[in-house]
């Protein structure tokens, strides 16, 4: 066991995968010599060589397009998109190609690959270094979408994603890269995809969160669920958690309309409405682009989450 940051755990997972499996490759913009703009791939090129960890030309379409071809032909590419805000040139490759390849070829061709990308606000990144784009990809059958929120999960989920037979979008909460630390086992282990984690046990309100633990210190016992994998979602765990308290708050940073928080709300409404004591409340980013100077007002921070919890608890 070692005490690691979340980004340290990502780096450790990549090293573990590169060491264990010669078909694993890591590439993207500035991931080689520089080791990534956040240093997630620090030291990989030195240890594993420029054939297996390398920089690419500045083209997200090219990064994901070539990764699909590699995956089809026996390699295990782990491609980095420097910020999720820049993933959109590759949208066609992800949505039309990687996600549909198995289906359209009856399983003759598949794209087992991982796309790692930092996402989310809290670093004063403004419109184009802060977005949370999970909804676009969760609306794409064939993709898996994973978000870790602890160092332990980051390593275990990333190793599970690399071993997975389907394409996985691995979204890393960049605000937590160095903000959280935790014990991480050495060597290989996996955290199963499509499982949830109970962050905190409580009786009064269920909070379905995709990121950090949070404090609610107003006498309300809060049950916090970290979804870990957004697609395919462990729906039953969400429904069970909702039934437990009958009051649900869902928290995401992304804009509200057609967002993931709404999907949770719909699942709870369809499968547990008879248990509900209050409306499901969404705490999300606003339906605006992501602001820079005033990002602390945009983000669903503790004051907004607690406000929603109180409304739901006192309904």
């Amino acid at each position, binding site marked *: 066991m070692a005490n690691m940051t979340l980004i340290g755990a990502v780096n450790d997972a990549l090293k573990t995968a590169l060491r264990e499996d010669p078909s694993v490759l890591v590439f993207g913009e500035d991931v080689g010599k520089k080791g990534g703009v956040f240093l997630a791939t620090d030291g990989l090129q030195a240890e594993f060589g420029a054939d297996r960890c390398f920089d690419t030309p500045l083209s997200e379409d090219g990064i994901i*397009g070539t990764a*699909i071809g590699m995956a089809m*032909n026996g*390699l295990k590419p782990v491609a980095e998109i420097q910020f999720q805000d820049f993933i959109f040139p590759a949208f066609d490759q992800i949505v039309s190609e990687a996600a549909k390849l198995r*289906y359209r*070829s009856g399983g003759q061709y598949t794209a087992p690959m991982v796309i790692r990308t930092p996402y989310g606000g809290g670093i004063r990144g403004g419109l184009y270094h802060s977005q949370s784009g999970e909804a676009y990809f969760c609306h794409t059958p*064939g993709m898996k979408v994973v978000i870790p929120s602890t160092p332990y999960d980051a390593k275990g989920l990333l190793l599970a994603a690399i071993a997975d037979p389907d394409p996985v979008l691995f979204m890393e909460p960049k605000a937590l890269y160095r903000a959280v630390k935790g014990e991480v086992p050495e060597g290989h282990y996996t955290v199963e995809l499509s499982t949830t984690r109970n962050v905190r046990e409580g009786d009064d309100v269920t909070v379905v969160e995709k990121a950090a633990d949070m404090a609610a210190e107003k006498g309300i016992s809060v049950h916090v669920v970290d979804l870990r994998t957004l697609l*395919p979602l462990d729906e039953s765990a969400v429904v069970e958690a909702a039934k437990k308290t009958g009051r649900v708050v869902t928290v995401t940073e992304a804009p509200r309309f057609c967002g993931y928080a709404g999907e949770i709300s719909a699942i709870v409404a369809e499968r547990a409405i008879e248990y509900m004591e209050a409306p499901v409340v969404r705490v999300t980013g606003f339906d605006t682009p992501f602001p820079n100077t005033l990002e602390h007002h945009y983000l669903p921070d503790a004051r907004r989450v607690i406000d929603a919890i109180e409304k739901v608890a006192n309904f």
Partner: protein
Amino acid sequence: MTITDLSSILDGPAQAEGFDPGISDEELLHCYRTMQLVRAFDDICLKLQRSGRIGFSIPNKGIEATQVGAASALRKDDWFFPSYRDFGMAMYHGVDPTDMMHNMFGNSLDTARGRQMPVHFSFTDPIHFVSISSPLGTHVPQAVGAAYAMKLRGEDKVALASFGDGSTSTLGFHSGMSFAGVWKAPVIFLCQNNGYAISMPSHEQTASSSYAIKGKAYGVPGVRVDGNDLLSVRAAVAEAAERARAGEGPTLIEAVTFRMGGHSTSDDPSAYVPDSEFAEWRDKDPIDRFERFLIQRGTLDVAEPELIYADCLAQVDAASKAAQATAPPALETIFSDVYAEIPDHIRSQGQAAFELAGRLGEAAAGDGAFPL
């Protein structure tokens, strides 16, 4: 070969007395027969579409020499990333027309299991003829990635990405060329300049002096060949493959040809192709040109072409009848192959759909095998 010259063997060296193509008679005849098979497949698909038995088809008339010439220069263990106007490559390497007809009818034996429109083939045997998607240019960087894998493992295989002139305007063309140039990936880019991208004439697609010249910007050698001359295409692809296998990287080949019909069975080219252009290219029909060459050198008897075409028609007709008689896919094929394992939410959606179809009496033969 240079970029501005249009290299043609049939109109050039082949005219000389005693010209030796360096290809066995058996191989020449296989190429010829494959071109006829492509045309027969086209002709029958047109009839099937016009009579409402299939929904859609993509004609290949005029492009046969480019497809078959390219395929004939490559090995069975090379990878083909085709466009939707390339199935002669699969036929050349022995894909059975019956397996292709299963796709045209979208039946239960279709490799795509009826999920795709017709002409979106996918084969792994006897060649990797990679599953075709409808968005254009996306397969170009994929071919580069597959080629990178070959290079990394030290294999001497190559990947071929084939696309039309319109696709040179897509993101995938530029990223694919760019990455391949930098990586020296063993890949061949085959641009079939067939005159039109649906209705957009080739000369309005780009202000470049040719398509082959586009390679220059990426450090990829470009060559321009007579795409209606099987020997020229074959020679250019063979040379590109040799370079790729020797570790010298990618080549861009522009094959100048002409689509002697609509973009698809849903398209009427008379709205945008002048009659004179059709007439001009009719005289350059790739099958006729190759046929004259074979007859001239005594490889083919004058009476044979008709017999060969009739034989191809019979083969495709039998394939079409077999495909028509094959059951449609079972309902479960909507829900399988999305992921390696069916996740809970898709499983429950499938069960609900199957239950509803059963309750309404819609469950057809095969649906009972629903394995969810």
